[in-house]
């Protein structure tokens, strides 16, 4: 968030340094997950997934700051407010969908595989 001291323009188009910084950070944050997954991943699947998703979240933030020039005072703070609102809705929608449908699946699957289960397992 430091590379925005040079712009005198009232409209924020960013600076050369800002774009290059964002680009280099994005390349690194893209290369890490691809290298990890293409190299077979870590022993623990959860750790691999954590690294991949962590890099993605950081890269989204990098894009927002260096490419989309988001900050707390652009458009009097309305871009930040609308973005935070969107993030809240997106998280509720995606996490809620996965949560609900995961439970639906665990509740439905034994029913569907009824014949495969030994008798007396189901209550």
């Amino acid at each position: 968030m430091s590379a925005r001291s040079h712009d005198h323009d009232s409209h924020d188009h960013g600076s050369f340094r800002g774009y290059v910084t964002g680009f280099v950070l994005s390349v690194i944050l893209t290369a890490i997950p691809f290298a990890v997954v293409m190299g077979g991943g870590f022993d623990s699947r959860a750790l691999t997934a954590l690294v991949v998703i962590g890099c993605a979240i950081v890269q989204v933030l990098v894009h927002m700051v260096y490419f989309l020039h988001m900050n707390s005072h652009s458009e009097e703070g309305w871009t930040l407010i609308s973005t935070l609102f969107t993030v809240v809705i997106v998280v509720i929608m995606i996490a809620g969908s996965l949560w609900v449908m995961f439970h639906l699946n665990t509740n439905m699957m034994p029913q569907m595989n009824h014949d495969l289960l030994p008798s007396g397992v189901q209550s």
Partner: protein
Amino acid sequence: MSTPSTQPAAYWEVEPHHHEDGASTNIGFWVYLMSDCLMFAVLFATFGVLHGSYAAGPGPKELFDLELVALNTAFLLFSSITYGFAMLCMARDDQRGTLRWLGITLVFGLLFLAVELYEFHHLIHLGAGPQRSAFLSSFFALVGTHGLHVAFGSIWLVTLMVQVNRKGLIPANKRRLSCLSLFWHFLDVIWIGVFTLVYLMGMI
């Protein structure tokens, strides 16, 4: 008392403070992007729910080619920074530089689309089209919608290149280029979600 010819009395400040030209366009376009983001969220959620429903068909490990995805990611990332350079040229009122960088951005956008179309064609050729399984339906819906956005962004880019070429970097064209800049970078942000959640997580 009231005569039809006079303006109604203003009980509020008509001009509270000065807004520069196009400022409301930028915030309005940002709100559009957020609504677009919600649409992608629905597609991501659908994919998340259905990503294991192969219907005894092929899964991501048999279908996806990560090297192709890495190439596509590189194209989109390069197009993002070249668009950024176009915006820097625009801020300096350098019309030729702006057009040159926009042209390079367009090339990267078209390369991205070409690789994606090749991938889709390859998958359908393998019999793994959108009708094969719920996993593939949600895959084509999500990745296809993103590709469609890039396609329309490219059409918009060509339109603006013609506009800038004919009328120069007038304020209206600068405003349009700023909007397309937001759109283009936004598509790159969505692509981060796509390559992470669809391709990389599918291959783990």
